[in-house]
């Protein structure tokens, strides 16, 4: 579990995050949603310690990241996995070498065991047989899956995903979402996903935090979204006609129950 307490961050006098408190739960996919520019990426970067907030606490199962020194932060980071927006695979290495990289840097296992672990991770994301390919030789969806395999190779407790669906077609997006959701439950990770994809919200929104202009506007699960009367949230989530229709039908059903 990760707990944020009163996180405030401003850049040159401009407040980007204003007094945000929330918790990300273990074994669940926790979504941070909001319009472009609302501060989602800044929030995730604060949580992983790439940016220092001006104020507040970030507790990883009780350990405050902000109070950590460089060494403690590096130790904590070995418990984190991160999926970057553009996958960020090392393009001078093959897919297998990418997945092996964190193991080679940090695991004390024998080479054989590391290889076994890497192959297990590749199998988990259905990339067995593609290990010898370079990132430039595979599709966007495969790159995302390879990046997931790399992120989970050290068996992290915490998984972060920045816009995991950007640049993917709707079907591939669903596959990636489901994969993230499944491994979150399987390995009991605390997963934090930053997205503006409404399909993801309704598909894997175990817990949703809605950010508007740097302020936490709403919090709940995907079922709560349907019933919510929060205007900003409805404006944002149900921007498309299709989603609005779905919501109306669901609400009618809910009333008639």
């Amino acid at each position, binding site marked *: 579990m990760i707990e944020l307490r009163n996180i405030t961050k401003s850049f040159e006098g401009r407040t980007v995050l204003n007094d945000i408190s929330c918790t990300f739960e273990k074994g669940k996919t926790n979504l941070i949603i909001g319009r472009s520019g609302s501060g989602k990426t800044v929030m995730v970067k604060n949580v*992983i310690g*790439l940016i220092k907030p001006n104020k507040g606490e970030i507790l990883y199962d009780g350990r405050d990241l902000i109070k950590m020194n460089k060494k403690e*932060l*590096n*130790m*904590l*980071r*070995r418990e*984190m996995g*991160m999926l*970057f*927006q*553009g996958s*960020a*695979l*090392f*393009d*001078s290495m093959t897919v297998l070498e990418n997945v092996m*990289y*964190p193991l*080679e*840097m*940090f695991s004390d296992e024998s080479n054989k065991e590391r290889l076994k672990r890497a192959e297990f991770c590749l199998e988990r994301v259905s990339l067995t047989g593609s290990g010898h390919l370079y990132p430039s030789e595979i599709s966007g969806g495969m790159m995302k899956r390879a990046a997931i395999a790399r992120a989970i190779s*050290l068996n992290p407790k915490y998984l*972060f995903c920045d816009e995991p669906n950007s640049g993917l077609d709707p079907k591939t997006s669903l596959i990636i979402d489901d994969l993230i959701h499944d491994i979150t439950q399987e390995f009991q990770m605390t997963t934090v996903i930053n997205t503006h994809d409404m399909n993801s919200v309704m598909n894997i929104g175990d817990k949703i935090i809605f950010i508007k202009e740097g302020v936490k506007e709403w919090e709940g699960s995907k079922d709560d979204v349907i019933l919510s009367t929060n205007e900003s949230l409805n404006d944002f989530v149900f921007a498309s006609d299709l989603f609005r229709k779905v919501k109306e039908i669901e609400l009618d059903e809910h009333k008639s129950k």
Partner: protein
Amino acid sequence: MKASLHKFGEYVLLMNKAISIPDRWSMFFKQLIKEISKLGVDSLWIVIIISIFIGTVIAIQISLNISSPLIPKFTIGYTTREIILLEFSSSIMCLILAGKVGSNIASEIGTMRVTEQIDAMEIMGVNSANFLILPKVVGLMLFIPVLVIFSMFTGIVGGYLASMITPSLPTSAFEYGLQYYFNSFYVGYSILKSVIYAFIISSVASYFGYNARGGALDVGKASTNAVVMSSIMILLADVIMTQLMLA
């Protein structure tokens, strides 16, 4: 002025982060071998070709310009040797390598920066500066002297070839000139200079790559700036070292 001081400070901090004990020695050596073969060995052919041609041209030029009967012919061999050993094979060669190797380093690290590959390393808890920069710095400092020795040798071979095809330049006189008043300290001095140039090229190019921001265009700019800045630094270092060691 303030901006350049700020940049210099950033450079020093980055080098401080890069030059530290590697997280894993096995990974460091793996990278080191890769860098030596990619940056060094792959530059061998260009060094050899340029050196042979320049060596030939230097010898021909000197023989054309020294036509006075008062100056003995062996002076041509002697002067060719001095130019190649003292300046060409170290300073001029490293200027050329700053273009080839420097732009390669800056664009590689710059691309890793803008595609978040460096962030990915940091988030794993890897010291990205150390992992990426140190093997390049050490690799070049080890291998550029080797390239310089190759350049000295092939440059002189080039001059020798010139003596074979130029009637006004007898081969025997050229040979005598090559050996005339040979000071082996000059070879050591040139190699020492090249080690310092290797540090300049690798560290300056790494700095520009590591601090690239934006997209592909910015990586291109970073790589151009890296070449310009490391060339200027090489020339400055050349003046300083010549003053200190020979004057």
